[in-house]
């Protein structure tokens, strides 16, 4: 018995958004009486962190602290339209819509502040801690809480804004096949190091190194979490998960978590992940989408690492011990199953 080591590499380009018949997401934003800005959406956050990054986009655009933003989302009966959080489009589409809504709200905020301070709105700036102040004469300032109160009860104004990001449908140019189906593309590669036991067929992933070019990382810790959680999912697809292991024969399909195997805490490889930031011109503060692509590169990287380790080329997932052993037998010219 030998434990054979190998290393494999794979790269992926992944589109942000998709070419629907027009692909919009909308956002509304308004200030409450005490200066909390409510971002109303119907986009769903199911753990990917959308509420955090759109709150960052709103805070950055308004020039107010992150804690002044409240994201109210996921009620599609009452919220502004969103096509949905799929196609790695959430951060890009919704972030852009929120920036547009916050830009409109900021103009009104500065306009009300100009009335309240009796200055020209063009001379005003935000200090990022909650004050709107006169540029060059910072002592003349008003806090957003006082400003929002004044807007509601003195001036009878709403501090609000509307935003929509709309990717128009791209038709194919018949002569060339040319089209513009997405808004930008993120790029990544993964190197996997594996150990293959040539007696049991078990493949262990020892390490995964990932590099992601994702535009600007609006929240680097959450982006890294997406990369590493996604790499785990990719490894799980590569080595463990199958609903129909002998497809198209449906026998021996797992029925529950005790049969549907996934790597647990004891099976995780060491991961090293690097984010490269090249802000995308169409992205909200330069961000691209990376939600779905993170499970992709690890799978062919692991397949290539298995080939490097023991010379077998597997093209059906998952790369189970049975498939590894059959391929090793075949490679050695001793396919026992053929002789019954």
């Amino acid at each position: 018995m030998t434990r054979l080591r190998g290393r494999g590499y794979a790269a992926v380009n992944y589109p942000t958004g998709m070419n629907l018949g027009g692909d919009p997401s909308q956002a509304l934003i308004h200030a409450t009486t005490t200066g909390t800005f409510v971002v109303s959406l119907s986009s769903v956050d199911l753990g990917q962190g959308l509420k955090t990054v759109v709150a960052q986009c709103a805070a950055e655009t308004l020039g107010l602290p992150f804690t002044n933003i409240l994201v109210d989302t996921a009620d599609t009966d009452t919220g502004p339209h969103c096509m949905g959080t799929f196609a790695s489009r959430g951060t890009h589409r919704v972030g852009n819509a929120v920036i547009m809504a916050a830009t409109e709200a900021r103009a009104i905020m500065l306009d009300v502040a100009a009335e309240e301070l009796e200055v020209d709105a063009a001379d005003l700036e935000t200090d990022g801690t909650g004050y709107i102040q006169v540029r060059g004469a910072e002592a003349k300032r008003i806090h957003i809480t006082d400003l929002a109160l004044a807007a509601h009860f003195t001036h009878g104004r709403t501090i609000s804004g509307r935003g929509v990001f709309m990717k128009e449908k791209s038709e194919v140019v018949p002569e060339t096949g040319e089209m513009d189906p997405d808004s930008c593309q993120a790029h990544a590669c993964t190197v996997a190091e594996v150990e293959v036991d040539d007696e049991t067929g078990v493949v262990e992933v020892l390490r995964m190194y990932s590099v992601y070019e994702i535009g600007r990382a609006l929240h680097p810790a959450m982006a890294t979490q997406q990369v590493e959680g996604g790499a785990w999912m990719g490894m799980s697809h590569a080595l463990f998960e199958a609903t129909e292991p002998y497809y198209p024969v449906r026998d021996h399909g797992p029925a529950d978590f005790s049969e549907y195997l996934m790597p647990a805490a004891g099976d995780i490889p060491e991961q090293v992940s690097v984010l490269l930031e090249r802000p995308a011109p169409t992205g909200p503060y330069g961000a691209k989408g990376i939600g779905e692509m993170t499970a992709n590169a690890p799978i062919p990287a692991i397949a290539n690492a298995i080939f490097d380790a023991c010379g077998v080329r597997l093209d059906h997932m998952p790369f189970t011990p049975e498939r590894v052993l059959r391929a090793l037998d075949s490679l050695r010219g001793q396919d026992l199953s053929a002789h019954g």
Partner: protein
Amino acid sequence: MASKIVTLRVNDREEEFLARPGTTLLGALRDTLGLTAAKRGCAQGACGSCNVLVDGKPVPSCLVPVETVDGAAVATLEGVAPTGDLDEVQAAFLEDFATQCGFCTPGMIMTAEALLAENPDPTRAEVVEAISGNVCRCTGYEPIVNAILDAASRRRSA
């Protein structure tokens, strides 16, 4: 079989209620007592999402007929920091980005609480062993293991 009166001490509070035959501890917590932190994931003891502590031991509450633990002390996530603050484990999970969708988190935290109560200075391997019955579909486990080690360190220096 008749319904039975069951008494539990849940998060240091006496609770007495009528349980129909076949009621699980998870069902009693969620549906009778309104404590919904423990999650019904697989309902067969294979995912750890429903883990709570019974007399200090982590158990999958979906597998426990509630009448069989009559009189026991039960700890759920709701009782970990009742004043609304976060305890060390919760704070570490939050600050170390150990959650994504959050469905496994109550079970993970209660499993970690049981580990740290018994072993305040666990090795990485001991943490991995402790959460080996808890399934997480989002994080890849690494941030969770790190958060539990961080929580242990925070609690030792607290």
